């Protein structure tokens, strides 16, 4: 039977990537709890699984390298080696090499050009050194020792004695199967059972083996092949095999021939992946989904099929009286479609922990490099986000964490002087709140230096000396391009490249970054992210006869204002008084350049929208209704438009633009600041 191993090889590669991540996480934890035997076992298991699978799926180099790592871990597990720092270091580096090997294997599997070659030799030498005696290439697949008794193919007669021990059945073995297997190897010339050991009926125990057999077998099989029949029974039976006529009773070593001799892994070497299977990012090529989610999906599909057949039935036998039934059936379809949509989106949701897991290593290495003592605390790893968001948030998070370590956390001595513990804490936390996911990076370091940022901003002309800005507004300046207050440029951060990129990346995901910082106590960066990129709960509204969509999450309320609650400022800007609060009034028709819209606010509607904790009143003609819309990217199909995050196709086939609230606010600020300058 030929079995194509390709899907299993790919599953193995996915799984191994997880094992490698688990190895890394485990090794990092091992440093603080070197005596944790359960932890050591789980680390060992991860390496062991990679090795076991790699061999079976034809990744020889992975199997060979992991074998060495596994040996070392095994020694640690058995208490022969201590998990001291240098050893953990070595294992971490070995894990990096393993990761490299697996990535190379993955590239090959998917027919992609291989990345840089992995240097296994140096690490392997170090590992071997730790293992003590240079095990001159310990044969991971033992070579076949040719049996002296192996005779040519010519048929000969063997005399075989087989006496199972009394407890032979205890391990689920069956003498009959062995005899049949022998018979299958040739022709049974004679066979006799020894029944002397059979007890009397009243003492007979059917679960004890009382029999033994002697048989003569004419076969072309070799002694090794015959011994193989009794491979599992060597300890549970007396077995003697000799050629008929042989004078001397040979004591055959039943178990000497390792079954692995027969398992030279020639099978399963990767055939070149066909061009059709080529994908760009191997990382994002597949997604692992829990069975539960798939089951739910199948349930909904079932419902949908029923609803669809209801519609078909009504339509095929339509009479005007059945219009009520039709409406009901269509409603059922609608409900199921929405359900299906949600479930399919859920398939794309992955836990953010998949990227959190890389940070302990980064923090560890960076803290060592900076001479700081830092503990990283993770929380909410199980928070789920769209796969696309998770992948893209990794870089900004990395940057913010490096930033916290470099600029936030003070050196140990300085911390002691301030009365803080030597060890700083960086807390990475994810949580779901409303329609958004928040990711926070908080440290207990020095906090942002408002004065220094202000000075820098003045120097760069980003603000004027008489500007009376809030602390929050000043802090936002660090997201300006090429803005760095670091006294010296370090390797880690401080070139002023990055924070603006962080902000840009987060915003391109439809998110926002907020800073809370208290001098001397620490800083907290809060990233707000949409749950998913592709579907949005929106409120449709009209301006001058055109339909636009506002994300529902950004709308606070809407109402028709009275003339008394509207004011025009000297600068020309307008404000609306809403429950004692003064909000800037933005005219959507003006921002979007639409003619024919209602310009009298008392005859139109104000939608109070919120972004980043700021509220503005948006003037629109009327609200049309709430619906879920599928976001189509505008950048890719047209170009980026400020104030617009995308477009969607409405039920009646019209295209509607989806408004981007932070963008609208920026647009209005641009407008007012030009006015202010004039």
């Amino acid at each position: 039977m030929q079995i194509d191993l390709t899907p299993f090889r790919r599953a193995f590669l996915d799984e191994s990537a997880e094992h490698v991540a688990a190895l890394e996480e485990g090794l990092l934890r091992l440093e603080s709890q070197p005596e944790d035997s359960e932890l050591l076992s789980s680390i060992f298991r991860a390496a062991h699984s990679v090795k076991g699978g790699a061999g079976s799926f034809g990744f020889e180099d992975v199997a060979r390298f992991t074998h060495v790592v596994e040996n070392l871990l095994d020694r640690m597990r058995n208490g022969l080696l201590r998990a001291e720092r240098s050893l953990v270091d070595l294992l971490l580096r070995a894990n990096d090499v393993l990761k490299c090997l697996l990535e190379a294997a993955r590239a090959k599997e998917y027919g992609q050009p291989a990345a840089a070659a992995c240097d296994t030799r140096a690490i392997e030498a170090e590992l071997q050194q730790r293992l003590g005696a240079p095990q001159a290439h310990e044969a991971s697949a033992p070579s076949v020792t040719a049996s002296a008794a192996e005779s040519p193919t010519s048929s000969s007669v063997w005399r075989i004695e087989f006496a199972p021990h009394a407890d032979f059945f205890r391990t689920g073995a069956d003498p009959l199967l062995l005899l049949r297997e022998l018979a299958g190897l040739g022709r049974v010339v004679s066979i006799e059972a020894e029944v002397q050991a059979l007890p009397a009926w009243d003492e007979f125990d059917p679960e004890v083996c009382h029999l033994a057999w002697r048989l003569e077998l004419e076969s072309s099989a070799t002694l090794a092949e015959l011994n193989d029949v009794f491979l599992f029974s060597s300890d549970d039976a007396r077995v003697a095999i000799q050629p008929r006529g042989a004078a001397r009773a040979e004591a055959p070593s039943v178990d000497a021939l390792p079954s692995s001799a027969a398992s030279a892994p020639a099978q399963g070497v990767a055939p070149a992946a066909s061009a059709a299977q080529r994908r760009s990012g191997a990382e994002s090529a597949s997604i692992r989904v829990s069975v539960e989610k798939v089951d739910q999906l199948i349930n909904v599909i079932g419902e949908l099929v029923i609803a669809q057949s209801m519609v078909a039935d009504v339509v095929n036998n339509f009479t005007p009286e059945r219009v009520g039934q039709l409406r009901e059936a269509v409603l059922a379809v609608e409900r199921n479609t929405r359900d299906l949509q949600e479930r399919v989106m859920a398939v794309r949701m992955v836990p953010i922990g998949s990227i959190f897991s890389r940070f302990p290593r980064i923090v560890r290495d960076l803290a060592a490099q900076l001479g700081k003592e830092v503990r990283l605390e993770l929380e909410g790893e199980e928070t789920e986000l769209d796969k696309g968001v998770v992948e893209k948030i990794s870089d900004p998070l990395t940057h913010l964490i490096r930033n916290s370590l470099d600029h936030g956390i003070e050196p140990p001595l300085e911390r002691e002087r301030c009365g803080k513990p030597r060890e700083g804490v960086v807390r990475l936390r994810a949580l779901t709140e409303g329609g958004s996911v928040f990711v926070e990076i908080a440290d207990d370091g020095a906090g942002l230096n408002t004065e220094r940022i202000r000075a820098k901003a003045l120097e760069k002309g980003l603000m004027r000396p008489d500007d009376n800005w809030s602390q929050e507004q000043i802090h936002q300046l660090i997201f300006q391009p090429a803005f760095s207050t670091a006294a010296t440029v370090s390797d880690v951060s401080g070139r002023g490249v990055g924070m603006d990129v962080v902000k840009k990346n987060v915003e391109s995901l439809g998110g926002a970054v907020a800073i809370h910082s208290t001098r001397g106590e620490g800083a907290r960066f809060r990233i707000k992210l949409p749950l998913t990129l592709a579907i949005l709960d929106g409120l449709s509204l009209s301006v001058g006869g055109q339909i636009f969509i506002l994300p529902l999450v950004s709308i606070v309320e809407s109402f028709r204002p009275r003339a008394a609650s509207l004011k025009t400022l000297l600068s020309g800007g307008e404000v609306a008084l809403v429950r004692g609060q003064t909000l800037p009034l933005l005219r959507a028709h003006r921002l979007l350049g639409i003619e024919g819209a209602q310009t009298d606010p008392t005859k139109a509607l104000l939608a109070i929208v919120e972004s980043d904790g700021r509220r503005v009143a948006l003037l629109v003609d009327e609200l049309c209704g709430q619906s879920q819309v599928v976001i189509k990217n505008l950048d890719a199909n047209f170009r980026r438009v400020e104030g617009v995050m995308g477009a969607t196709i409405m039920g009646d086939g019209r295209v509607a633009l989806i408004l981007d609230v932070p963008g609208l606010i920026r647009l209005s600020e641009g407008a007012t600041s030009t006015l202010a300058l004039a």
Partner: protein
Amino acid sequence: MTKTVLIVDDSVSMRQMVAFTLKQAGFQVLEGGNGKEALERLAGAKVDLIITDLNMPVMDGITFVREARAKPQNKFTPILLLTTESQESKKQEGKAAGATGWIVKPFNPEQLLKVVQKVAP
């Protein structure tokens, strides 16, 4: 009559490969990710063959073999261990716990079927 096999391994790819191979060979397949899960699968079910890995979280292979063998309906069920060549002592430990035989990793589907054929034809 269709035979049922229980496959116990924490490695999904390994389990898939073994499961697929045995399904091709006409077995009905039950799966467990560790010893404990496997015992739950065994509750009330009669299987004709058990194949188990040794190193698993929650409950390892040896403990699983011992517990499975202790159940009356599995008293004579063939149990195969998935082991590596470096685990010679484990084979003995496994036999002592009641395992019938073993399959040495790495193996390919043909080798797997050969060993299965041996204990559960």
